[in-house]
């Protein structure tokens, strides 16, 4: 069935996104030559977007993207995780879903409906991102940058509280529930990290 071939290609594009984007996270964590490395991370993110994400979008445009969601969701979640983490590293702010989707607009075929990341994949990716925030906070605490760590802590707490309210209404509420537990553990790890600096 032709559909199966398309699904295979979508899965491959999704995997390629995941494989090529992970380095962005390491770069954002990096403490040496922060400015340079962050700049490189931005470029790498753009490259993944323009090569692999664009390919994914090409495959999905014109087809029912809800139908193939299982095939591409992991890659999209990973992309959201990395892009939001990068944005936080750059500016300390949250990259909203609208912002991420606006970066994807230029990749779409203008004659077709633009492919946008949906709420569910965004929230799932955001949830994963908080784990990286926890690692960043712990690292900063051990470097003595406690204030920054406190800010991260506040940020993660806020995300956790906001997401708590939407979990039961999500399509993937089962997955999301376990992610929320991990998220709470991340918050606790950061909070415990503060007690160790005394």
């Amino acid at each position, binding site marked *: 069935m032709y559909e199966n071939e398309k699904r295979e290609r979508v899965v491959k594009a999704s995997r390629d996104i995941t494989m090529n984007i992970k380095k962005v996270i390491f770069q954002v964590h990096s403490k040496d030559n922060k400015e340079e490395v962050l700049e490189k991370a931005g470029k790498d993110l753009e490259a993944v977007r323009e090569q692999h994400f664009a390919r994914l979008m090409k495959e999905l445009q014109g087809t029912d993207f809800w139908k193939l969601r299982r095939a591409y969701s992991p890659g999209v979640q990973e992309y959201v995780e990395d892009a939001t983490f990068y944005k936080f590293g750059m*500016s*300390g702010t*949250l990259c909203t879903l*609208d912002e991420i989707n606006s970066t994807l607009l230029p990749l779409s075929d203008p004659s077709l409906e633009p492919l946008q990341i949906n709420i569910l994949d965004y929230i799932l990716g955001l949830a994963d991102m908080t784990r990286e925030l926890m690692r960043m906070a712990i690292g900063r605490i051990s470097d*003595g940058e*406690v204030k920054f760590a406190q*800010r991260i802590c506040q940020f993660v707490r806020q995300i956790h509280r906001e997401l708590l309210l939407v979990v*039961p*209404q999500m*399509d993937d509420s089962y997955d999301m529930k376990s992610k929320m537990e991990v998220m709470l553990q991340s918050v606790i790890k950061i909070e415990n990290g503060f007690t160790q600096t005394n």
Partner: protein
Amino acid sequence: MMNSAYRSVHLTASRLINPNPISSSLLHLLPLYSSTHAAPPRSSPLRRRFLATPSSSSFYIPMAAGDDQVPPPESHLLEKQFESFRVQLEESAALREQIRAVVMEIESATRLIQANLLLVHQSRPIPEIIEKAKEKIDDLKKFYGRLAEILQKCPGQYYRYHGDWRSETQAVVSQLAFMHWLETGTLLVHAEAEAKLGLNSLEFGLETEDYLTGICFMSNDLPRYVVNRVTAGDYDCPRKVMNFLTDLHAAFRMLNLRNDFLRKKFDSMKYDLRRVEEVYYDVKIRGLISGGDPPPPNVQAQSS
């Protein structure tokens, strides 16, 4: 007062150090811990070295690049976004509730049909059974119509919610196909199944995979039927079912199925076919089939 001194120092310092200056409008969102705690309760030993006095009015330049440079997340943007998420997800959850209610009705109608059809294993006359079962089909049509209406409220999201009626639909197809076979001895085709349920592929259709899976479920029930028919003295049944299943299996083999649930169901059809063949063979060698071979001669040696 001590906060504003701290703030202005912070502003200057961060503009000097951070080549990507953050707009000062963001800085006023800084939840300075010094405003809520008397002294920074959790400052690291490293930081204490740089502070002339523990009070935050002292002149403080962050020596370690990074700390104090990054502004806090823009809370209001964050809240707005999540508020919008809540609204959207509440809508989809409500829709899902409606869908589930209808699907439950579909399921109970299907069970009624199934309970009815089970009587064929007890040799009740088929036409009677079919008549009763057909009454329920109208109900099914009604329920699927309701489902289609609900889905119209969210165009383009058929596949988002499809999982909610997938297995129920497979069960429906399985019963309908069995009923059809009992009546006609032939396979209920996809288009016919779709029409029976009042569906059409343009708006709300019968998924091909659901149809195929339903057919596999029907095949799973056939061996049992054959055994019970033979017990009841219908020795023609095995041959009929065997031919039917052989053709069905061959047709399925032509599909290029991927390694998923449907594929596994198709694989199980092989075993259904084999069991029916065994019953057929059994019936045949006992000479029970009209016009069949006479029983083999008794080759057991006579005990002396």
